[in-house]
């Protein structure tokens, strides 16, 4: 296999500027929304004292989970020795960092008092990682996991791009791979630790997040890779495209398997079967719709067909499949995060609970435009940073044509 020649993408064409302008406009809309939210308070959003995490968290958690998944292509190439994917590694690393950045920006802008973050001494966060707090603030832990991820993947990228450091890249990839597993597990645990809430009270949630991350990350990867090659006139051969297509299909199938296990487990627990489980899956509400139509039909079955059935061989099919996986992922987060809060907690087992603030009743929520714009701006930030990185760094191989990546390939 030839060593690929990496080059920057050009940054002067009208197309490039148009793309950047659109992304900046979306980011601007999101940032302005966040400012209005801080000026007026969260009162203008759909969030309440019952639904305390709204649409921004749906996007943010999706992106954070997808970030570690985007690193997969690099991990497959180096940790698992699949050299076909090797030329794609740098893009995979860069994307994993920019996706994480997009997710974190949403989280920070959605805070009630982001400025207090600056007042909280770092030691407070570090304190949360002390042994006596290990079972405590997973949020504090995640802070370390996120910054560590950026740092490690950054070093991994540096070792990969700079020739004389190449020899360390393998070790770095191993560390990055383990770290990303920890990161997704940690994100899953944010919910796993909320013992009071039935929807999250499952040991399987953290591993499920890891499996979901594979599909979400790869989908975003395809959504960047294919247009990047098409719009810059670089060649992207069928070998790579078909590999990615198959891989996405396998990841989506694995995710489906975990989703089925999780739901079956919940049905076996009698208390949950006619409580939260019934509510989320058969409640005839926006959550059950998001589950069946968004997550299962659009986000799982359709992409499975588009990736694994022999009839769909085009790039367009892979793009659509990837888009659908993203829609499915956002739906899944909506069901888990918002649906999980909407269902009332069983505060007094054996009692019907009522109060003016709606204890015991299903909480209503409808997303506001501010929240949606803030969420979308996270995706725009991810893409903006990714395009910017491709423009200043040499991370894209000039050609991924079949003959360049697979010498045994006969056209």
């Amino acid at each position: 296999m030839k060593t690929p020649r990496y080059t920057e993408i050009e940054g002067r064409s009208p197309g490039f500027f148009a793309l950047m302008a659109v992304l900046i406009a979306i980011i601007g809309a999101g940032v302005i929304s966040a400012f209005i939210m801080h000026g007026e308070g969260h009162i203008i959003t759909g969030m309440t004292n019952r639904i305390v995490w709204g649409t921004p968290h749906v996007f943010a958690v999706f992106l954070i989970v997808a970030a570690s998944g985007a690193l997969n292509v690099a991990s497959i190439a180096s940790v698992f020795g699949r050299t076909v994917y090797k030329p794609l590694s740098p893009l995979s690393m860069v994307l994993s960092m920019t996706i994480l950045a997009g997710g974190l920006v949403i989280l920070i802008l959605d805070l009630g008092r982001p400025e207090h973050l600056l007042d909280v001494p770092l030691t407070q966060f570090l304190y949360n990682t002390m042994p006596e707090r290990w079972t405590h603030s997973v949020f504090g832990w995640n802070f370390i996991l996120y910054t560590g991820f950026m740092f490690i993947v950054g070093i991994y990228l540096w070792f990969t791009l700079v020739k004389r450091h190449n020899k360390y890249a393998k070790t770095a990839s191993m560390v990055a791979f383990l770290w990303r597993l920890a990161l997704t597990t940690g994100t899953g645990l944010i919910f796993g630790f909320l013992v009071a809430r039935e929807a999250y009270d499952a040991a399987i949630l953290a591993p499920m997040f890891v499996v979901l991350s594979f599909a979400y990350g790869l989908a975003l990867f395809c959504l960047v890779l294919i247009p990047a090659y098409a719009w810059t006139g670089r060649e992207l051969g069928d070998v790579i495209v078909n590999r990615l297509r198959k891989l996405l299909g396998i990841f989506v199938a694995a995710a489906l398997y975990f989703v089925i296990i999780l739901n079956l487990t919940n049905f076996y627990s009698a208390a949950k079967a006619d409580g939260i489980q019934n509510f989320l899956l058969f409640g005839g509400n926006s959550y059950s719709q998001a589950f069946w139509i968004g997550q299962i039909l659009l986000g799982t079955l359709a992409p499975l067909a588009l990736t694994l059935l022999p009839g769909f061989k085009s790039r367009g099919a892979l793009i659509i499949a990837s888009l659908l996986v993203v829609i499915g992922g956002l739906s899944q987060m909506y069901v888990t995060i918002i649906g999980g809060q909407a269902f009332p907690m069983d505060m007094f087992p054996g009692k019907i609970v009522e109060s003016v603030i709606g204890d015991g009743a299903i909480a209503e929520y409808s997303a506001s435009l501010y929240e949606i714009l803030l969420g979308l701006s996270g995706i725009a930030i991810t893409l903006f940073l990714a395009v910017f990185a491709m423009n200043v760094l040499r991370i894209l191989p000039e050609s991924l044509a079949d003959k360049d990546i697979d010498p045994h390939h006969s056209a």
Partner: protein
Amino acid sequence: MSQNKVDQYRRQFLAQASAVAGLSIAPGVILNTVHAKPADQAASDKNRWGLLIDANKCASNCNKCVTACHVENGVVPAGKINYKTDAQWIRKVKLTDRQTGHVQTIPMMCQHCANPPCVDVCPTNASMKREDGVVLVDKHACIGCRYCMMACPYNARSYIHEETTEQKYPRGKGTVESCTLCVHRIDDPNGPIDPACVEACNAEGHKANPF
């Protein structure tokens, strides 16, 4: 495992959950006499504060404790009342037994849990538990992430969704707050004073709230 944890958090309600007994005991209840704490002395674990609520005495049509609390602490809605987003430091909850149909009401506020999940999850340690058992939020450290609200099993916390008006003690939009057990009263330099809800309940003659 987590079920045990929930049970642990709920333990103070076990007595209450059965129709026979009517007691809800907040943790850290002490039954010895309380001596005034000199003003310069920090909160210590010598005294552990708690509320003892006799659900059988709580009158279903009475809302005095709620009003008293919100007047005392300046917790008033900024605009017109909106139960979904207004701060509720204390609220009345109606409980109907699924089997017997027995109806009770109780005031519901922060339980100042023995092992508070809100404190466990707080990333900035703004949520804290004093030595004397009172669980508080440091408004200057709270970043408004609402993780504590996700963790609280009693919906006891409120997020401040809009600018506050007529505040008496520091409150702030974008932070989280909940019952303080009237720390300003129990820390009174001349000796602890009953929290406002307790005072109101006793004055009403229901005496559901011996402090």
